[in-house]
């Protein structure tokens, strides 16, 4: 059972970076007015940020990281580990984390690796980097995000208006006075086809003949090289597992839900987060949201929400936060942390 606590590691800062280009739900030409209103009401998404064609997720993470490292005047030689969590790496190989080690000017003694996870990726990334830091490494940089818009079809109403692009950087360090982090991690590969890009890697290599879009149902037209999403399956999975696993994580940490200041959930869909909140019988104020302005930003959604919706609180006080990521895999993960006051910032990328 993947439930464990990590001591001696603290979060020093969280930065996010989003493209300046905004796409508004009401401007999506495949929606009529009623569909647009229903989509906004259900998902909560009014607008999202879309990166330019030549901008990658690593560019957004790089921008977030350089701002963080400069603002905090970090000695780059102290960074012993860099993890890049993303499903939109720069290349098939090498790992994007290794290219970022060089771009960021980090030491060759810094270990660097990619983690291929989406919506649960931030919490998974925290679990790996903190577990390594607790063994005596000095500082670590966790970069998480996705350029999901690269893989969605304009003609697929079930994916195109949902996703936004974002990159984030979280700095962590070894600190013997840090509060324990309590992790609770899960996976269920039987749901692999619920969110999938089927073609483009080893099982089914990229196939130019499959670039042609096929209509699966009215309003859902895409190629097999693009992202497919079974909304019903994902929704049922989230309703079945998320609240249950959050409660398990709290029970493991022996912390009452009332003592948690905020539950920062992955921003997939407002309806999912509202349902989780109602199941847990908690108030709306305890569940900060960022999906309205940024859409579903995959593994960036949790740190981005902290940066844009909890800035004042987390910069001025210590917060007890329950972070919960869930989605593609299927994979889901929770962590209970005590953090702050720490600097957080969201910067634009042009």
């Amino acid at each position, binding site marked *: 059972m993947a439930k464990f606590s990590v001591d001696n590691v603290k979060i020093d800062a969280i930065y996010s970076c989003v493209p300046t280009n905004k796409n508004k739900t009401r401007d999506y030409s495949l929606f009529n007015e009623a569909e647009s209103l229903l*989509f906004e009401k*259900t998902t909560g998404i009014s607008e999202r940020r879309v990166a330019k064609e030549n901008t990658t997720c690593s560019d957004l993470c790089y921008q977030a990281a350089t701002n963080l490292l400069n603002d905090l005047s970090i000695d780059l030689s102290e960074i012993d580990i860099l993890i890049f969590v993303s499903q939109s790496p720069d290349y098939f190989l090498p790992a994007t984390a290794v290219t970022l080690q060089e771009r960021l000017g980090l030491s060759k003694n810094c270990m660097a690796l990619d983690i291929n996870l989406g919506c649960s990726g931030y919490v998974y990334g925290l679990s790996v980097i903190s577990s390594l830091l607790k063994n005596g490494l000095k500082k670590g940089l966790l970069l998480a995000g996705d350029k999901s818009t690269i893989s969605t079809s304009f003609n697929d109403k079930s994916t195109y208006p949902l996703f936004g692009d974002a990159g984030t950087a979280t700095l962590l360090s070894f600190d013997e006075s840090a509060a324990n982090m309590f992790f609770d991690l899960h996976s269920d590969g039987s749901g692999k086809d619920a969110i999938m890009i089927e073609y483009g890697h080893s099982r089914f290599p990229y196939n130019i003949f499959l670039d042609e879009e096929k209509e699966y149902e009215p309003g859902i037209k895409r190629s097999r090289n693009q992202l497919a999403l079974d909304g019903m399956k994902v929704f049922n999975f989230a309703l079945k597992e998320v609240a249950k696993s959050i409660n398990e994580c709290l029970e493991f940490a022996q912390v009452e839900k009332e003592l948690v200041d905020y539950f920062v959930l992955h921003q997939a869909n407002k*309806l999912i987060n509202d349902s989780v909140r109602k199941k847990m019988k908690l108030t709306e104020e305890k569940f900060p949201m960022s999906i309205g302005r940024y859409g579903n930003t995959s593994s960036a959604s949790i740190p981005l929400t902290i940066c844009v919706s909890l800035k004042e609180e987390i910069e001025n006080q210590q917060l007890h936060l329950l972070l919960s990521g869930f989605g593609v895999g299927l994979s889901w993960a929770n962590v209970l942390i005590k953090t702050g006051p720490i600097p957080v910032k969201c910067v634009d990328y042009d």
Partner: protein
Amino acid sequence: MGWYNFTLLILVYLSMNIQELITYIEEEFDEIEKGTIHSESSIREIEGWSSMHALILIALVDNHYDILLTGEELKNAVTIKDLHEVILKRKS
């Protein structure tokens, strides 16, 4: 209590509960005018029915009855009565 009265009570109980489900649905969907749907109404008669409505309905049933409908169950439920029967069956 005779069988007639017992059956009548059960019928009243069921119809009361189906009315409760209808009220929840009317409250949730802005597209539905209050008092315009009944047990035999088709769920998909909601104007502009889409997969988004299906998600709202799943969340509604989960929230009020603590039952997670599968896509298949929802697909097979044509009327509100059918949906109510699925809820009763799952509850028992």
